[in-house]
């Protein structure tokens, strides 16, 4: 492979980057007790990017390694077709060569498809056994082995082999015409042996859906709100790190400007692709840049952005190693890998015990950002009464201006943890795995509106 890619690199002048991936995947899906999907995929795909001197990018996606030399020539031709108004410059990097393709310890390709089906069948039965009011479910098992080769004309080289496995559960409870849902997922680096005991996860999803059946809507008012670690991490990912990604071609979001205060002293947010043991940690990004731990917010102030080589050169800073491609065949853009809110002081119990009447939000179904407006859709919510967690409630989406939201952040606990769920970040229809980590956080005086006008 190395010789083939070296030959391809020599097929055109200027900067050339070749990335090729092979992916072996398994997907098993049950709808209620009915097996809907049990199959394996083997995909191969790559992309060549070429920057002819004085021109713009030419890129060609391809399927097999043998096509790489022809793809380089075509990408060069496309590059020369462009006549950009400004020169594209890439920030310099140290060309590193990384070979990390040892045999996998727990290779999911070695487990038979019927065994994976049986695993999920048993977990699905566990979910349905919780309560007769579970009327529907969708459960899933997935595993992926990914082999990556990356070579650039500047001498960077990466050969990487990794695997991950995921489990997901959606439970629908129904009674008297009403329906409620709950969902949960887990993603682990390695094979399916890394899951351990997961029956309790499937039981808890069912219990949460049933508990929501008789939950009452929150009375519309302003409340202090405590977000659990997962919700806090997801919020930081969508509303801070996502707005600190230097815009690449094809994306023009509202970048939070450097130096802007967006929150209190206790708020610090970073992205650390070097964090050990996480499924989304890396050594080199998809441009061959060594990854770095980048702080984007320190003590409430925006101090940095995530960069590709091109955006870093434009901003006059060093690349951070966040040039990541969302799919096998797409070009890199600045994206987070492991986003976190730094832990501060105290426990979740301390954050809650100071609240006479408030709301506790565990997990979120979604967070939308339009301009500077943020909408948070809670997954699970409970009232806080007299400093204690109380009854489950249904909570309408919480909407707020971004700066107003973080202006109401008053405590960040010290109980930091990385979230093991199968989180992804969507961009242009493509999903790329991402990990978030955070402690509990507390916001004062957030407006919770009625569920339905």
């Amino acid at each position, binding site marked *: 492979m190395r010789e083939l890619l070296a030959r391809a690199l020599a097929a055109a002048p200027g900067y050339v980057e070749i990335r090729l991936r092979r992916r072996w995947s398994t997907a098993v899906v049950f709808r209620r007790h009915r097996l809907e999907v049990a*199959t394996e995929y083997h995909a191969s795909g790559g992309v060549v990017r070429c920057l002819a001197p004085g021109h713009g990018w030419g890129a060609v996606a391809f399927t*097999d390694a043998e096509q790489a030399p022809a793809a380089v020539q075509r990408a060069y031709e496309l590059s020369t077709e462009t006549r950009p108004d400004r020169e594209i410059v890439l920030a310099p990097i140290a060309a590193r060569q990384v070979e990390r393709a040892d045999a996998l310890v727990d290779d999911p390709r070695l487990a038979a498809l019927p065994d994976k089906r049986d695993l999920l069948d048993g977990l699905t039965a566990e979910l349905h056994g919780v309560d007769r009011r579970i009327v529907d479910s969708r459960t899933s098992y997935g595993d992926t082995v990914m082999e990556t080769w990356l070579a650039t004309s500047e001498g960077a080289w990466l050969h990487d082999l990794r695997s991950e496995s995921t489990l997901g559960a959606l439970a629908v409870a129904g009674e008297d015409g009403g329906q409620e849902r709950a969902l949960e997922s887990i993603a682990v680096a390695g094979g399916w042996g890394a899951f351990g005991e997961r029956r309790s996860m499937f039981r808890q999803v069912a219990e949460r859906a049933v508990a929501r059946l008789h939950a009452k809507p929150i009375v519309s008012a302003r409340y202090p709100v405590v977000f659990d670690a997962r919700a806090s991490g997801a919020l930081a990912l969508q509303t801070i790190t996502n707005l600190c990604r230097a815009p690449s071609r094809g994306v023009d979001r509202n970048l939070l400007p450097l130096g802007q205060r967006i929150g209190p002293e206790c708020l610090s947010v970073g992205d650390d692709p070097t964090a050990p043991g996480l499924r989304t940690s890396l050594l080199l990004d998809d441009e061959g840049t060594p990854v770095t731990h980048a702080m984007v917010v320190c003590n409430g102030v925006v101090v940095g952005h995530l960069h590709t080589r091109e955006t870093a050169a434009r901003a006059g800073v060093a690349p951070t190693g966040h040039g990541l491609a969302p799919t096998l*065949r797409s070009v890199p853009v600045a994206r987070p890998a492991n986003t976190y809110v730094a832990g501060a002081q105290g426990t979740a119990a301390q954050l809650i015990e100071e609240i006479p009447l408030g709301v506790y939000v565990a997990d979120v179904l979604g967070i*939308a950002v*339009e301009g500077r407006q943020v*909408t948070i859709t809670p997954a699970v919510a409970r009232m806080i009464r007299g400093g204690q967690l109380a009854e489950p409630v249904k909570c309408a989406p919480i909407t707020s201006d971004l700066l107003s939201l973080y202006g109401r952040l008053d405590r960040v606990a010290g109980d930091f943890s990385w979230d093991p769920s199968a989180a992804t970040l969507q961009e242009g229809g493509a999903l790329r795995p991402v990990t978030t980590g955070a402690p509990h956080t507390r916001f004062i005086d957030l407006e919770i509106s009625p569920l339905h006008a």
Partner: protein
Amino acid sequence: MIGGLLGDLASRGAQADVTLVDDDTLTVSLDPDGAASITADGNHSVHVRVAQHGRIGWAAGATRSVRDIVDRAFASASCAAAAPLFLPAPAPLPAVMTRSPGAAALAPRELLEDARQLRERLRRHGWRLETWAERSAGAVEVGNTRGVQAAYDVSLVGMGVEARAPDGLICRVYRSQVTPLESQDVAALVDEVERRLLPPLLDEGTVVRTERVWFGPRAVRALLAPLLPRLIGERRTGRWPELDRRLTLIDDPLIDGRPGSRPICDDGVPTRPITLIDAGRASDNILDLTVASRTGRPATGHGWRRGFAPPRAGFSNLVLEAGAATNDQLAAELGSGLYLADWSFGTAPNPVTGVFRAEAPWIYRIEEGAVVGRLDGVVLTGDAFELLGRVVTVGSTAEWVGSALLPSLLVDGVGVELRR
């Protein structure tokens, strides 16, 4: 190629069907700082489904690894539960235009020129602009071991722009169709961006009330979204919502030159228009071959088997029948009120209940028939099903939004919250 593949599958004693898709896509984009990029992507995929000993399995991948895909499909079948699969027999195909030679031949230079034109026409406003133009061309082949073998060529041309308003809001509009876009399409995109971004921002203070709202075609697409899952697959038990009698929704794969048009579905079933909602009442659901076989009903020609996704039912071109009211009449009927140009339910739509609470960044105040400004910070609340029962007027001018042809709707009783 598909004939040989089906022969191999039949020789292994299986019922089988196959979809082959070839697609070459060329995309050019001009970023806000004037840099250009051109991307080419040639994709050739195969999707194989086999039924052996009453068990159905499937696999997908690139055409270069067909043997591997076939083996995986059989492995998938070997661990599946028993289920029926009734493959369709050969039948005459309807005529529909799915490819334009002019579109398929568009070169990078022409696409760059289109993207530049679009940028130049919007540049005078000083907005940050990203423009793009794209064309794809290819072919789809479908076949099964009962003798279905069909192929059709496809093309698609698209153009779009992202323009960022001074307050940071990003306006995204696009057009796509089978034939090359003309100068009037560029003009329409320019007009839409200007209509969305030029009105001044209004400050109306805090308001919480229900109002009559004019949903433009893009916003109607969102309002229909919670209803669409009820029109796919087996008819669910439970109450069908009380929709306005003027709402008739058709799925029509036989409209020439639209993104969802095709003569045969990926399950090998000839396509035909079907009425999904007839005068407010539920009519037919779309069924792919899997669900149709399981429920003993005929498949409707809505099978999709693309990429690595499982076989599924999906819409082609959705058409909501237009009414009689011109835009002037809609404005007159609205009087002073709100116009919603574009909308989405955000990240957590709830198609089960229809209840929503969603920001509406593209909502405008209309007074005496004219837009006077855009409102910032509006949140719409309500029940989408109830709102579709409170339609006051259906517009006469339908517009294509992707693969949906939709008129405007004037709707009463929309929850409007405006908080400054």
